[in-house]
């Protein structure tokens, strides 16, 4: 057990170092850092001073280690475009993305579980069939088109909800939140649905399949034979046993939500890190791209690690042998 955990931690560490290596390669070798920071008119002395200060003449492994060390301390260099420290840019924009991701995940899990239970219990009903068929269309729609269509319907035609931005935000320390104002909450609705819709259908289908599987089993029949009310059978017995796969899938999808925020944030001009990344790609702002890669890579590796360790906690059969999932 301890050995498995140690090996899994080591694996995660190696992958993180690899992600950092890719980020470092992008940071160091794409474009000319000196020219990007000083412009073409800089004197030779200025250039030499900057090269010395950034340590660009040190051996590459030394530079890599310094890059990793700086990143751990939260120093990702200076943006080529705005000349601000990248860490300040990220700190300013991260709350927007995290709030959006949180609301999307909540929407996906809550509504997905509810609809999944409903379609499993009333699986022959008309409404359940309608939900299942429309979920197929939802899966085939590209994310950006869902966003644009929602804007069209709710912002342009009906005029109910804002179509871009975060609305008014309240600053609490370093964190700017949109949860405390009416316009902030209204601005969250459309982007959160856009971002969470795919995950919602995924969770719904998963809950439905698991529920149907479990409702076939003997202990459900016995529970009914004991005369338990249907509500107890469904929620006390069946639902409880479907939650393990749902939690793991929901956990893994959290990473996907943060990555797909790139698209949603662009559609809604949501001032988060995803929009920052797209702008960085457009303007070839290398330090920002590299920092975003490190950030998202870390999130993914940590989420995968937690999910794998949760498996060990939840399923005792895995403790003796190999890990079931080999996602590195």
């Amino acid at each position, binding site marked *: 057990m301890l050995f498995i955990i140690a090996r899994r931690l080591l694996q995660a560490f190696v992958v993180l170092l690899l992600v950092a290596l890719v980020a470092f390669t*992008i940071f160091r070798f794409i474009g000319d850092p000196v020219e990007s920071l000083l412009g073409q008119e800089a004197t030779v002395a200025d250039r030499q001073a900057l090269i010395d200060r950034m340590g660009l003449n040190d051996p590459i492994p030394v530079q890599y280690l310094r890059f990793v060390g700086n990143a751990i301390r939260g120093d990702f260099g200076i943006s080529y475009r705005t000349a601000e420290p990248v860490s300040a840019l990220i700190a300013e924009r991260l709350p927007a993305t995290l709030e959006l991701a949180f609301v999307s995940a909540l929407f996906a899990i809550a509504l997905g579980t509810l609809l999944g239970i409903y379609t499993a219990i009333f699986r022959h009903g008309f409404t359940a069939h309608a939900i299942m068929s429309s979920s197929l269309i939802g899966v*085939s729609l590209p994310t950006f088109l869902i966003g644009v269509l929602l804007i069209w319907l709710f912002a342009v035609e009906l005029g109910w909800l804002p179509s871009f931005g975060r609305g008014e935000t309240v600053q609490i320390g370093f964190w700017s939140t949109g949860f405390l104002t009416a316009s902030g909450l209204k601005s969250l609705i459309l982007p959160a649905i856009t971002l969470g819709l795919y995950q919602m259908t995924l969770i719904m289908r998963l809950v439905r399949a698991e529920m149907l599987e479990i409702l076939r089993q003997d202990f459900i029949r016995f529970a009914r034979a004991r005369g338990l009310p249907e509500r107890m059978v469904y929620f006390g017995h069946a639902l409880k046993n479907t939650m393990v796969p749902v939690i793991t899938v929901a956990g893994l999808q959290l990473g996907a939500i943060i990555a797909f925020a790139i*698209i949603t944030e662009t559609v809604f001009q949501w001032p988060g890190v995803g929009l920052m990344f797209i702008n960085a*790609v457009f303007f070839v702002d290398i330090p920002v791209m590299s920092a975003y890669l490190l950030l998202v890579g870390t999130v*993914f590796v940590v989420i995968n690690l937690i999910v794998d360790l949760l498996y060990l906690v939840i399923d005792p059969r895995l403790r003796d042998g190999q890990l079931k999932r*080999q996602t*590195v």
Partner: protein
Amino acid sequence: MNGERGAWQRFLASDFFYDFKRSPVTLVSFVIVVTLILLAILADLVAPTNPFDPASLNLMNGFTPPMEPNAFTGETFLFGTDDQGRDLLSAIIYGLRVSLFVGLTAVILAMVLGVSLGLLAGYRGGWIDSLIMRIADIQMTFPSILIAVLIFGVARGLLPPDLRDELAISVLIIAIGLSEWVPFARTVRGTTMVEKEKEYVQAARLIGLGSGQIMLRHILPNVLSPVLVIATITLALAIIAEATLSFLGVGAPPTEPSLGTLIRIGQDFLFSGEWWILLFPSVTLLALALSVNLLGDWLRDTLNPRLK
């Protein structure tokens, strides 16, 4: 000639064609995909105007609604016009050409790369196998759209600024191709590991054929049917990925708009009431992606009777 007709008749009598005939959804999807591909190939002949020829544009025609004569010039356009007075139908047909071209070439790139690496990993085994599959595992951890955007950004950084728009399409193809090779490699590796133990491969080895020849001439033909299925499904993914990147503004350049670029332009005019600039490109993209997806699903069920 006779032999050809024999093959054609054998095809008409095959289970494959029988299944195809029996599925109305598949027939409709097939007709839609073929029509859209033909439109894209014959764009110069079928499009009413050439949307990239400034001489054919008349600014007075700007914002003409579909099927209504323009207030100034009296001209009528089936799908209306955009702000520049560009015929939307023509823009869509030319955009379709860019979308399909990028999608198809990206899939071919992903397929060649994935199949080669998969064959190599499955046939050689050992450290080559571990290395390739570790890279595949790590790449699978990240969503492919993220990887495609990243590759696009890196390529932009490597290119001098004046070449960025010119080479944007090639960069787009490489970015999407490199982000989709993993499913090919995984499937081919698995099948190759099964196939290489079979007697015909042993026999080929026994008569002294080299590994390259065994992989390409003997194993490859036997792993092709799952590859075909993955290629079709990946084509739908690649078309959507291209549209997404272009919509985000990090894909096709403004000089060669794809369907995604047109949707991006259309979104700008939503608030002023010009809904057709958004609607028609979106419907075209959806019809294309959905039909390719349905064809892929059908192909998977047909070539894999066990799943039925």
